[in-house]
């Protein structure tokens, strides 16, 4: 029932994630952060099986930090995504299968922005925009309509607001708040939460 969204621009990547942590029908926590800053230029957002999400993300994050300690420079976002996918693919056919859906978002001064969609089967694809979870089903067409190759950060935030409005209207599960983070040449920044309160006066058609 959790939702992740991601959108890539010419020089940034923006991720949004809901903040609800539920155990079957009970909401345990309303302010769970699912977007993790893994390095100065890298964000990972994860949803899926409880426990697997934290364990797998932490494993990847610590290995990326170890790479930096050993070599003196950061792993590029493309390589980080490749490393993540490889580990998930190896765990897929083992006794310890992790069931996680993730986005790897990063900005490299040489290679530019990178948004990688990774499925629970370790299918990885570099995309311009995508989503995970039931909420993402309502957002595909919004992204198709409003994304363009020269999208700015303000426009991308606006597109995410339209997506959240649609999710809150049409998804049976109540996802009150969405955390938003962006990574660009200046590093990682957390933007204002998109919540039902902040969308009260928002006119999606404009």
């Amino acid at each position, binding site marked *: 029932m959790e939702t992740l969204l991601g959108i890539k621009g010419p020089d940034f990547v923006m991720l949004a994630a809901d903040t609800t942590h539920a155990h079957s029908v009970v909401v345990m926590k309303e302010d769970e952060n699912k977007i993790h800053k893994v390095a100065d230029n890298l964000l990972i957002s994860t949803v899926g099986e409880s426990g697997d999400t934290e364990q797998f993300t932490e494993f990847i994050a610590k290995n990326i930090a170890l790479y930096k300690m050993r070599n003196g420079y950061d792993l590029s976002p493309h390589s980080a995504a490749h490393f993540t*996918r490889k580990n998930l*693919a190896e765990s897929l056919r083992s006794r310890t299968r992790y069931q996680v859906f993730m986005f790897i978002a990063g900005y490299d001064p040489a290679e530019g922005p990178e948004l990688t969609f990774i*499925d629970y*089967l*370790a*299918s*990885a*694809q570099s995309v311009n925009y*995508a989503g995970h979870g039931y909420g993402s089903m309502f957002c595909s067409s919004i992204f198709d309509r409003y994304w363009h190759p020269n999208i700015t950060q303000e426009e991308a935030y606006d597109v995410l607001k339209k997506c959240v409005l649609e999710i809150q209207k049409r998804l049976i599960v109540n996802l009150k708040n969405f955390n938003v983070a962006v990574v660009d040449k200046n590093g990682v920044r957390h933007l204002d939460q998109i919540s039902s309160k902040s969308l009260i006066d928002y006119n999606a058609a404009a």
Partner: protein
Amino acid sequence: MTTTNKITYNGGCVIAMQGKDCIGIATDRRFGLQSHTAGEDCQKVFHLSPRLYLGLTGLQTDIMTVYNRLLYRKNVYEINEGREVSPKVLTELLSHLLYEHRFGPFFVEPVIAGLDPETLEPYICCMDLIGCANVTNDFVATGTCSDQLVGMCESVWSPNLNATELFKTIAQAMLGSFNRDAVSGWGSSIFILEKDKITERLIRTRKD
């Protein structure tokens, strides 16, 4: 994933055809999760060697795993032998890789297309998910719309086509087939490999 068919979960198709001193290999570009299209520029053909292409269709995660593992084995071969791998040898490498997982297979249907590095003879072959190779001298087709592809190829292919005619033939076969398949399509990437050059073309089609 227990009730869904793993080979058709992501959708996709690959064909390869032999012409006069040239080969062509083509795939669609869709990355889907059953009925939902998640990506429209998915790469399913990999340029393993200057004169060798590997096309993979099936479960996307296994496509990437098989490609990475085969690339590793090919690189080790080239370091040990000190020469470029030939299509026949690559077929053996891939066949062994897949049969090693006989009872827990990778859900991929590969196609190998290339020119022999020494004789420049065209070579195409397809394989099933456990490595049974089928080497032919006309065309091979795998994927969710393989029935349609084989039918189209049978009617449009003829021997000794030159590079331009081969491109038109492959394009016709691909478009005619994946237009009738819901989980393939969203454009087609076609590579024509000749003695002295490779031409890559992208055909934009209806995205539905």
